[in-house]
């Protein structure tokens, strides 16, 4: 697992994807930060983190699109799958590498809030809650990305497919407000929505159920990815 993790990290930073991701993430985060706080004279972080969530939905698939598709295309997966390494540890090694890059970008970008200290009092609890929320949502997005990447040889299809699935997860929450009549439907849809659950975090509430929700969706997609590899051996 450690070998695969190290190899992935190398892959990010000997190629361009790691740098492109970090630079783009920090730059866009900077712009959003400037507009939502500095220019609007506000220390409220809700808008910033909501936009960052949407941005993550588009940028995170870039981080995961190559993870498995490239191995399959280059046939290097034959090395991984015939080495004494289990499929779960291979998947988790890759997940941890993508997650490390993402977490680093997120934590660096959050340092922007230090700029506000001279001008306003920052609610640390809200800030930390938001960062944790983005970490959790990122985990979901990355595992979705890994799963889709394991399905194809083509990076571009992997990225687009991942964005599509993420948008479905985000979108269900928005549909729910359009169907007010049916209470149980709305309840189910909101329970499944990445977005609705995220909002409670941005307001500074820490809900255990949301925490468990994000963890279980991620675990589910890790499991799906492992299954993809198990299945492929039989076909």
């Amino acid at each position, binding site marked *: 697992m450690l070998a*695969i993790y*190290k190899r992935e990290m190398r*892959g990010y930073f*000997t190629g361009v994807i790691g740098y492109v991701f970090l630079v783009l993430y920090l730059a866009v985060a900077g712009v959003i930060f400037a507009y939502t706080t500095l220019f609007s004279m506000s220390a409220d972080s809700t808008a910033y983190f909501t936009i960052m969530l949407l941005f993550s939905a588009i940028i995170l698939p870039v981080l995961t699109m190559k993870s498995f598709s490239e191995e399959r295309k*280059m*046939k*290097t997966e034959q*090395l991984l799958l015939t080495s004494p390494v289990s499929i779960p540890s291979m998947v988790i090694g890759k997940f941890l590498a993508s997650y490390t890059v993402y977490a680093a970008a997120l934590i660096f970008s959050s340092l922007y809030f230090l700029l506000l200290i001279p001008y306003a009092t920052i609610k640390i609890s809200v800030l930390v809650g938001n960062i944790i929320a983005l970490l959790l949502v990122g985990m979901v997005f990355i595992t979705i990305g890994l799963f889709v990447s394991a399905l194809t040889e083509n990076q571009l299809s992997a990225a687009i497919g991942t964005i599509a699935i993420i948008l479905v997860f985000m979108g269900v929450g928005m549909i729910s407000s359009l169907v007010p009549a049916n209470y149980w439907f709305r309840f189910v849809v909101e329970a499944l929505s990445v977005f609705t659950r995220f909002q409670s975090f941005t307001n500074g509430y820490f809900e255990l159920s949301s925490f468990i929700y994000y963890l279980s969706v991620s675990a589910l997609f890790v499991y799906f990815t492992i299954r993809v590899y198990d299945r492929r051996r039989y076909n």
Partner: protein
Amino acid sequence: MVKVENLVKRYGSNYALNDVSFEIGEGEVVGLLGPNGAGKSTAMNILTGYLSSTSGAAYVNGINILDDPIEAKKYIGFLPEQPPVYPDMTVLEYLNFVYELKSVKLDREGHLGEILSVVKLTDVKDRLIRNLSKGYRQRVGIAQALVGDPKVIIFDEPTVGLDPKQILEVRNLIRNLGQRHTVILSTHILAEVQAVCERVIIINKGKIIADERTEDLTKTIEDGYHYEVRVSGPTGQVISALKKISGVKSVEPTGTKDGDAGIYVVETMGSTDVRRAIFNVCAQNNWPMIGLAPTGTDLESIFIRLVDRSDRKILGGRTR
């Protein structure tokens, strides 16, 4: 060391492997021979745990690859058809990665250094794999299979795409590996099996059609040897003189000529060597002999005969 029992691999209604069994002992060098699409790669992929079989079992060092894949894979080094190398790494970085991936316990520097010198990669060890030629990449692939000094080394078409000099080098390398490892290699090049392997398993359409020592193969298939003789002399007399040699079954003129020499095919009974006798007869009659070569006994023609025979069997089975 390696045992395969009644392996079946089915894709829909197509059988890639149909009831294949064989056993390979320690230190053997075995060639899996067959035309493209015969099931060689499938067999190797199952043996290395990359694919699962529909039924049947594969054992490496006594361990069932499906029951305990991680343990079984520790004894295998595998070079797939396309070398599984990462273009963005240098040769040494790549081998270090494989070393860690396989959790090898040997002394790292010494072990990797030895592999580099065995496959002659020491000079390019710090170059990016992306910038290496096909032949060098293939060697990196071979080096990868040697990491961890596995007991069984499996090569899937190791010389495809190499130039003649590189092919000879790789064959020598494989022969040397055979002294300390069990080696299985697949190929559709017959000369390769003759040059490298002690034993050959011939596969066609998912079935084993021959499993012999390489040197025995010719004897079991052929009733006698064929020689092509080029002699200048009156055709009728040459034929009757050659027919009188004891051990000669038939003499056929091919009807073609090499300069003024006629070309004849001499078939022998059993494995009698009649070459000296043919020479003596020609010399006595003062017929200059300008060529004498065995023909039809090389693996090429035996292989085609075997494949034809098995095709007929399969076809016959269906019509009945």
